[in-house]
């Protein structure tokens, strides 16, 4: 705790410095080499930009990403909440199919500039501090000097407290986590980024908190299906509840995890003789997980978010 406070203070210092450097009067123009910097907007005009990968499934989108955005909107009435997706494929599809216009990150930052916002909080709905989060930061950076202040909220699993909050959030909606004969298996995407260790750290924490039959695997990285099968065999359970560990229960959840086809987690675990139930519920649908993102926005506003 002590170490964290010191760190937080140091970070706050860094951030203040950061703020000072861009706290110039609104009418001052910047000499940004990309020519983006015009007037720095009105600091009292505040927005929260919620950045998600996106999904083309409308119901799913509103139940997950939409629900997170609504929770943020309800908690911060003084801010306008805006949406950006990082997947251009999904943006293009929605535009073509439904005529729905959704900004990518660059377009969103440009529109915030054009609309005269001075205070911007960028909150990703990413699970971890991986490539997508880094890419989002890179896309936002060139626009920082267009605003009086730009701050970034953290992905879902960042601090030690986040892990505990995530465990409480899922335990609140999955009573099976305490059943003796049932294993709850969360399956995340998995990444080549070193942030992939997040999954194992979370599994460790589940175990430490007494949820001994709750496991965390990934579709594309470590721990993989065989790693989880070995743990299941030792656990002595006969039933498995399979859930995606992804904000949106999209194509991966439908095919690779809950799909009834060779190679999917559902079918392969069934072949082992388990009674398997697949639940296509994205993390964005858990009420208390929405609150974690709200908390991360608040942390950013309060200056607890690290500015890199």
């Amino acid at each position: 705790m002590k170490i964290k406070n010191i760190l937080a203070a140091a970070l706050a210092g860094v951030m203040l410095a950061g703020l000072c450097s861009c706290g110039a009067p609104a009418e001052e123009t910047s000499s940004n080499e990309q020519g983006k910097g015009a007037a720095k907007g009105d600091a009292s005009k505040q927005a929260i930009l919620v950045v998600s990968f996106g999904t083309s499934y409308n119901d799913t989108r509103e139940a997950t990403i939409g629900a997170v955005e609504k929770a943020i909107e309800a908690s911060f009435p003084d801010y306008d909440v805006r949406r950006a997706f990082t997947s251009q494929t999904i943006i293009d599809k929605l535009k073509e199919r439904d005529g729905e216009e959704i900004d990518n990150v660059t377009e969103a930052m440009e529109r915030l500039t054009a609309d005269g916002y001075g205070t911007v909080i960028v909150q990703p709905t990413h699970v971890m501090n991986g490539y997508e989060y880094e890419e989002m930061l890179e896309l936002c950076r060139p626009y920082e000097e267009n605003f009086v202040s730009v701050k970034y909220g953290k992905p879902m699993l960042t601090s030690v407290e986040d892990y505990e909050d995530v465990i409480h959030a899922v335990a609140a909606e999955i009573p099976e986590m305490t059943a003796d004969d049932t294993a709850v298996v969360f399956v995340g995407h998995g990444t080549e980024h070193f942030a992939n260790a997040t999954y194992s750290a979370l599994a460790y924490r589940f175990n430490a908190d007494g949820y001994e039959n709750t496991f965390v695997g990934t579709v594309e990285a470590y721990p993989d299906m065989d790693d989880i099968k070995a743990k299941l065999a030792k656990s002595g359970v006969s039933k498995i509840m399979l859930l995606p560990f992804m904000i949106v229960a999209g194509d991966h959840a439908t095919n690779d995890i809950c799909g009834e086809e060779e190679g999917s987690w559902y079918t392969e675990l069934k072949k082992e003789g388990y009674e398997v139930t697949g639940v296509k519920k994205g993390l964005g649908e858990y009420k208390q997980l929405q609150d974690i993102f709200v908390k991360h926005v608040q942390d950013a506003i309060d200056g607890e978010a690290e500015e890199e």
Partner: protein
Amino acid sequence: MLLAAVMITALAACAGTAEVSSDAAIYFTDDDGSEISLDAPAERIISLYSAHTENLYSLGAEDRLIGNYHTAIYPPDAANLDMYDYSEDPEKVIAANPDAVIIRPFITRKAPDFVEALRRADICVISLYPDSLDEFDDYIKKLAMVTGTEQKAEELLSKFHAELDQISNMTKDAEPKQRVFFETTETNIRTTTVDSMAGRAITAAGGVNAAQDASPSEEGSTIAEYGIERVLEKADDIDVYVSQRGAMNSGGSLESIAERHEYVAIKAVKNKRVYTINEKLISSPTFRYVKGVREMARFLYPEIMDNYDAYKNDNEATRAGFADIIVKHEHMPIYVPSSSKYYDTPAKGHTFGMFEDVKWRDDEFDSIETAVYSGAVTWTKDGDREYFYPEGKVTREELAKAVFVLGEFKASGKNIAISDLSDCESPRIVTTLVDNGVFALSNGSFEPKRAVTNNEIIAALDML
């Protein structure tokens, strides 16, 4: 040397040169209106359209094929060819030294410079595409002329038409006639014209196109604007809803169709008769069109098309028969991989088309691939090679695993004593199924290694 000489002659006599002659051994006008004359069949062909590739394989001309269009992945072997694309530098094609490049008029329109560059390099460019099903035979015959496979073409075409007739005959007396809405594009719910390949497939399968009033968006096009309102006006008249899936202008997936809230009014949606079909089966001019028509007929008249009476006997089952019974009994749509990235993605399980002992030309290919894809039927890996053993026996335990994977059985906790449970690879599955009454014991034994009969397979699947 001789071959090279032949090739040079062939090249010199191709379209666009002064020496085109109707006296040549091979002479025809292609679909760009170019006169093609060759003294001998082409030996080094690059195909720039997936259907050409597929048809050249069907004709047995794969040895003449040195290059393939980059998204063509059927038959599975074609994925191993060198890949080319008309949006790339034509020099790549020229450097491969083909004696014929087979394109389609779409490419001539879309990439005229590319095509012109090939012609300038004295490569024989042949542009073919049948605008309708009626032109299919003529198109195949031209491909056959280019490859010297005329006899094979005759055989395949007569089989093709006989099979289409056979499907039509099976469904022609079925009542009531099933009405189909065919979605080709999710945007604005576009459909297909009645005389397109897909439209003709509906008729050949004994169905009625629910969108008879669809007119082409532009003259000659097979795409017809329709729109959700008009679909909903026909809500009670749509018995079956089929969405065409593929790389371009795809129809909706089952998930996205399920999200169209207004669709609950449609009869097909209420009755859970919504299906997807791969565009390569039903809208592409290949011999696989028969499979597309058969799939359409299975969607429309499952009881007729998926009849497995021929298996109702006490003969020892083969693994190929096992797969066929499962696909028919469960009305599984045949599996077709659609992504051009399919063979680039490391496979966790079986890779489509890669069994050493079940090849794409085999009659049982689709039922075996489909049953394996479902996870119900196992297979064997030996090093890098995959085997299905189609003539092998089916053991009681293999049948038990299939039934367990396909169904939703819960452990009852009865734990009926099974004397040979220790001989079972999956004691949990065997116990659950014996407890659920799916399998009976013989003097207290499950007999996991005993071969089953066709009737035993059907009886077990009936418990699902």
